[in-house]
């Protein structure tokens, strides 16, 4: 596979700090566009939407890394931590724009979180992401050992909640949010399929030695 070799060797050469830098600058750039009128007539909603979508996109990229390696041999695993941390950064920016520039009123924020299901769902996704962001470092990986892997499976729930949140924001069923959900479900479905396959593999191995059936 020549193409995947090219991608893999290119990816090896790309320093991780470049990914961090690009990710850090991107929301700042969007903020600049919104503040200077380049994001249309309703910049608060536009910025809020762009940042939320960016968060979902980063989440999807992060979830695609394992299946990409397994299915086509593209190895981007060394970027996964950066992408995860950036996802949290994008979603935090989305949340802050909502809090400070959109809702503005503290008492309303609390009411919204409790009373409005789409916000409850979005907040739940954010809360689930927080421990993942905090433990996205080598020290935590060592410290937590096998529990680290278990903890980071929370990202599957985060992704599902994020997709639901986007669908619920729409006034009608909107194609864009449904497409995001389909992609997220496909990435989660692949994992279910993959773990079943591995289980069957293990069962077959032990089965052949004992010949019970």
């Amino acid at each position, binding site marked *: 596979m020549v193409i995947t070799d090219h991608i893999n060797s290119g990816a090896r050469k790309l320093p991780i700090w470049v990914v961090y830098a690009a990710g850090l600058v991107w929301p700042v750039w969007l903020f600049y566009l*919104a*503040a200077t009128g380049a994001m*249309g*007539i*309703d910049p608060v909603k536009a910025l809020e939407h762009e940042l939320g979508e960016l968060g979902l996109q980063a989440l999807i990229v992060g979830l695609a890394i394992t299946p990409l390696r397994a299915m086509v041999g593209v190895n981007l695993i060394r970027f996964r931590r950066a992408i995860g941390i950036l996802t949290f950064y994008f979603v935090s920016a989305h949340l802050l724009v909502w809090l400070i520039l959109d809702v*503005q009123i503290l008492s*309303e924020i609390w009411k919204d979180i409790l009373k409005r299901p789409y916000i409850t769902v979005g907040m739940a996704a954010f809360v689930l992401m927080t421990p993942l962001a905090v433990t996205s470092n080598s020290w935590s990986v060592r410290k937590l050992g096998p529990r680290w892997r278990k903890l980071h499976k929370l990202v599957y729930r985060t992704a599902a909640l994020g997709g639901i949140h986007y669908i619920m924001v729409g*006034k*009608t069923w909107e194609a864009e949010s449904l497409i995001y959900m389909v992609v997220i479900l496909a990435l989660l479905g692949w994992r279910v399929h993959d773990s079943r396959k591995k289980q069957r593999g293990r069962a077959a191995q032990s089965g052949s030695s004992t010949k019970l059936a």
Partner: protein
Amino acid sequence: AIAPALGASKYSTDAAPNTFDEISAYNNFYEFGTGKEDPARHAHQLTIDPWSVQIGGMVDKPGSYGLEDILTKVSQEERIYRFRCVEAWSMVIPWYGFELNQLLNMAGVQSGAKYVAFETLVREEEMPGIRSVNIEWPYREGLRLDEAMHPLTIMATGIYDKPMPKQNGAPLRLIVPWKYGFKSIKSIVRVTLTDKQPQTTWNMLQPREYGFYSNVNPQVSHPRWSQATERTIGGGLFAKRKETLMFNGYEEEVAGLYTGMDLAKNF
């Protein structure tokens, strides 16, 4: 036949209107797509000449009314109204148009009529949203007859001194300034007088979220967001939210239409 309006209408607000560019670049008109910029992008395809309105149901003179003909028989004037969308944003818009009661009187409303139903044009080849947006077309709206006859309720034909932009509902649209914007149906081709409460599009889609009345009411939340405050369009990224007014500030004029009604129930 019509004297130009001297001075401002007593129904106009003295709030500063939004610019023509703001009003014509930020629209909800799902026949052209669900994005706010979609109508401005696609509505140029719409042909609005010739245009006629089918007036029917419980009227003395049902039939097809040509727009040009209508406009020679009504008196038009500027009305600067607050416009509050159910999505919690607002603008101030200088409409040009005539009171709906003039059109209804032209057709002769029969005594048993209680409601007015409206329909928007459906023309698939000129309206890309008809195919891509999952709504049962045509877009439908309705008013109680007393709401329709109220002097604040107008059929608008222009904004500032310009003809109505297509993305804003050319050539003829309803404006009911004390109700959420989606009640103010665009590009109207059919008006029907009836004795039954007509079906309305958003109510058909989400009856829990959008009622028949849909009067602006800061005390009655949309199930998914508060209606207590609004984002004023045109204020930029750091604009302060504004408190939403009961009946969008037209309480004095219209509260009497709803005396004795539970407005939380009849939302």
